[in-house]
């Protein structure tokens, strides 16, 4: 979406919410089922739902010629970090009967989501562009020459 109007931005936001609201509810229900005694397959189903919604979000980005907004990226990173911390804490100080199956299902699910994010970034931005997204050190270099194209400048 080149130079989107406010209507375009709201329309895209509504579309993203139309995807994540039902998918999120279903994922929460499946994860809850798995964590309250249903077993690892329900957790895997919940993770698969999140992955499917992520793929749907990428399709929306392609269809609307847009990318993840900073708010979406922040929310995604925060949720992912919280899930990761909860998993580690759960394993360390949680109940003993938190089986390996549950740990494995959540761990593999989070790993697959991370892999999906990496694959998406590689395809969308290329290896160099994907790395540049995290290369905050270079952002601190304010020399004018850093902006030159042949020096990898991107600001």
């Amino acid at each position, binding site marked *: 979406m080149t130079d989107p109007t406010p209507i375009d931005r709201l*329309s895209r936001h509504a579309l993203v919410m139309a*995807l994540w*609201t*039902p998918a999120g509810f279903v994922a929460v229900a499946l994860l809850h089922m798995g964590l309250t005694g249903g077993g690892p397959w329900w957790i895997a189903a919940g993770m698969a739902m999140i992955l499917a919604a992520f793929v749907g979000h990428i399709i929306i980005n392609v269809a609307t010629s847009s990318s993840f907004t900073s708010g979406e990226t922040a929310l995604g990173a925060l949720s992912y970090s919280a899930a990761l911390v909860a998993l580690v804490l759960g394993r360390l100080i949680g109940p003993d009967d938190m089986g390996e199956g549950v740990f494995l299902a959540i761990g593999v699910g989070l790993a697959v989501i991370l892999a999906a994010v990496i694959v998406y970034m590689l395809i969308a931005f290329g290896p160099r562009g994907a790395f540049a997204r995290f290369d905050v050190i270079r952002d601190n270099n304010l020399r004018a020459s850093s902006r030159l194209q042949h020096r990898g400048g991107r600001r």
Partner: protein
Amino acid sequence: MTFLLLSALALIFFYGIYFAARTARLGLAPAHFLDGGSALPGWAAMFLLPGIVLAGIGIDRHLGLVALYGLQAGHIGMGMIPVAIAALLIWNRMWYVTRIANLTTPGEALGRYFDSIALRVVLLGLSVLFALPFAANILSNAASLLEGATSGLIPRIAGVWLMALASAFAAIIGGWRGTVQTLAMLSVLILLFVLVVTLFTEVTAQSPGFPIAAMPQENGIMWDRLPGVLQNVFGVGKTVPAGGIFTAVGVASTLLSLVGLVISPAALYLAQTSRHGKTLGLSAVWLTGGLLGSILIVGVPVLAFRMIEGPFALAELLYGVEPLISVMLLIVMLAGAILAINFFVVGSTLLVLREAVLRYLLPQLNTVQQRLAARIALGFAFFFMAFMASFLPLISAILASVTLPLSVQLLPAIAGLTFLRWISRGAVLAGLTLGMLIVVFTEPLGLILFEGLFVDLPWGRWPLTIHSAAWGLVFNLLLVLLASAATMRHPQRYERDRLHNAIKEATGPASRGLGAMGGFFIIWSFLAYGPGAVLGNTFFSDPIFTTLMPVLGVPSLWIWQILFWLIGVPLIWLLANLAGFGSVSQDRIKPITLGPPPGQKPPGWLAESLRRIT
């Protein structure tokens, strides 16, 4: 369960208010409130089409019917193919009509094309029927469901007003665009939740379900077959048809009434106010014909089997396994009702406002005042709708029963506007009048009135197990054909030709193979849901072409339904992509002005009526 359910409902309503507020804060021109700037996002209409159809059928009602009548009621799911085809053909052409001749509402389009005030009035009447009794009936049923689900914590009347109030807030703030964006999400939610609940129920069930177990039926109902092509009965209320009411022709005529949803004034308005693009094809082929068709044909019998003791029994059972899935089951039914109420009340009210109030009664209002008028009108519409749902549920139900069949009677007029230029004004009006009269007298409205005032009629509802929509449309079409033949060279034909020529130019050369597709569709219809569908009763379990007796383990009719649904989806795809009805484009449009410029002066009879009232 009550707390979870109410929390989920509250979240849905807050979602609506959030997007309404975001839309209002965009600072768009006030006229956007009424029509979304005629550029509603294509994805919203794409998701809304299957949602409108499913909500119009009534999810809980349909599940109840399939639980009661088995696969003969489930055969209604075949209707998703003709409904998708009707949407493709009519919505596509309505979009072009709007852009070519600047005819911005369905009433204006039909009224200007046929040069008829009467058609505008009919459209207004239909809009009112959809906005008030039709929506009130759905709201009343939803509130009863909520009362049952909360074990009486929220009585029916309180439920009616709570849901109406929450819906009204969002509509009054966000207008047409805000409403459509929210309802699109509800549509996605319903489709996804139905799938998840069905799969979850089957995976966690303790006992085998359909198709391994047979549906328990009483009163001689044939749950696994269609009870004949027709039944020689006088209609519901007079004679009980043996084996069930869903005969092949009964199913076909019921499907016809579903087309009434797609050509309802609010649905046509949605088509007219959508942005150009290719989303119509995606919606018709994959979401309506494909996904919704699969849900209704494959999923609903499976879920309905688990709901033989009612939705609350299944919800209780699921609550013991996973509370959130139980809430999802109830939300599916309630969200369907919320979607239908919001769509028909908001769409129809805006149409009545634009067609009658802003055009004839208060033409001097500027756009800011028009927006204020629209907000006031929406408030009144939701109030009267909730009032009817609360205190007049029986009257709402009776009037709602005629709404869809009456809407179907507009089909010849819309066909004339979009494809058949030889259909004339006189023919449309004569056919419409006859068709509407027949509908009224084959539904409770006419039967109760006539029998209460005069004598008992020999027929009841749906004589010969044929839906009132089909009774009306058959005679309607007959009259339209005869009258159009007599008025073929009427001078008014010139204006109609101009519009059709402009549409032809805008849509490009006609695709080859349309005739073959039409022929194939007729054969498909005959076998899928027409008289030929009775072959499916035993075609796979007791085949006529061999003496072998196959052991399928599933009813033959179910295989027949799935097979013809699978054949039907590619048919929609061909129409959408090969014939080009799946996309609309501005590129070749050359605007025209149809007929004399529209006058702002109200017609004499309307002015006189107003003078007497005021």
